[in-house]
């Protein structure tokens, strides 16, 4: 019906705030009058319900609310964990992949094994002893007699034998034992 009052106007009428036109409409319009009475009746019911004693007891709904209440907490924890993870990812230096690392390690180990088993150390020891004896020979120079050469040859031979068993005795020990008596004899000959 055109010209009928809105709910808010009817409510304000009950609050004593209305124009003369609205009041006269309310008196003449049966529909608006009925709606106004409904508002008054509902208001009485509501006011009585809210004003009655004892006051209502609030009980927690079992099940679902606990889930709803824990959702923000869970979201917060997840966010914190994600942030920490992201932070650690950001600041960690770039590391080679595990596979590449394993390849490098195994290659290195293989080189070490070859160096040990393939006689590199032994050869190095022999070379070292040869160098020492040569140096000794050069140091003696022209004074080195035939006997001296024989002694050096013996020393070479002893050294070669000792190198076949590197674990039994060290190269340095072998060299000392081989050269020491010869050197003593040589020094005594020179003194004479």
């Amino acid at each position: 019906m055109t010209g009928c009052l809105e709910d808010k106007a009817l409510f304000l009428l009950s609050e004593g705030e209305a124009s003369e036109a609205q009041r006269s409409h309310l008196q003449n319009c049966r529909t608006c009058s009925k709606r106004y009475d409904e508002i008054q009746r509902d208001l009485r019911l509501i006011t009585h319900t809210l004003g009655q004693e004892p006051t209502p007891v609030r009980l927690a709904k079992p099940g679902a609310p606990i889930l709803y209440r824990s959702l923000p907490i869970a979201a917060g924890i997840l966010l914190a964990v994600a942030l920490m993870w992201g932070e650690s990812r950001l600041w960690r230096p770039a590391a080679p992949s595990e596979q590449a690392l394993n390849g490098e390690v195994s290659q290195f180990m293989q080189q070490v094994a070859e160096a040990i088993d393939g006689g590199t150390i032994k050869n190095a020891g022999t070379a070292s002893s040869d160098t020492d004896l040569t140096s000794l020979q050069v140091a003696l120079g022209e004074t080195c007699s035939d006997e001296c050469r024989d002694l050096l040859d013996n020393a070479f031979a002893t050294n070669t034998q000792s190198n076949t068993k590197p674990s039994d005795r060290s190269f340095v020990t072998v060299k000392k034992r081989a050269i020491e008596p010869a050197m003593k004899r040589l020094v005594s000959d020179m003194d004479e």
Partner: protein
Amino acid sequence: MPDKQTTSFEGLYNAHRPKVQRLCRMLLKDSAEAEETGQEVFLKLFKQYQTDSWPDDWNAWLTRVTVNACHDRRKSAWWKWWRSSNGEVQLAECASATRTPEEEALGREQRGHIWSAFRELSGRQQEVFVLRYLEGWSTEEVARTLGISEGSVKNHLFRAVHRLREVLKHNGDGS
């Protein structure tokens, strides 16, 4: 104005305690919190009682202090509100055996719906509704107490009543 010869603190406390507690329970969702707020209100009453500046009307003063205390409590305890916001309102059994016409018209479940809808109203709407309809204050008094305009009071009232009526209709009105 009441004087100290005729008005004792104990008398004031006993006379206004039920009303203050009811107001707190209406405006706060948590009953323990309502109890605490009621205690705060009576502490303020005691302090005011010891001063020389007594209000003209202790009832109005206490109502105003209670509403403001509940308002402050709601603002400071948002997390408590959130914690308790999922609660379900259930009406306790009425102690009296007699039933009023309004109780005859409304079922227990429907009254529970009205209470739930009231709880879902904004704090300001609750305050305005309580002061205007349950305390019977005029619009002007409500506006002055809450520090808002009369127009705002009417708007809050209309929204509150509109929402409560909707709930009443959707859950089968009492006719």
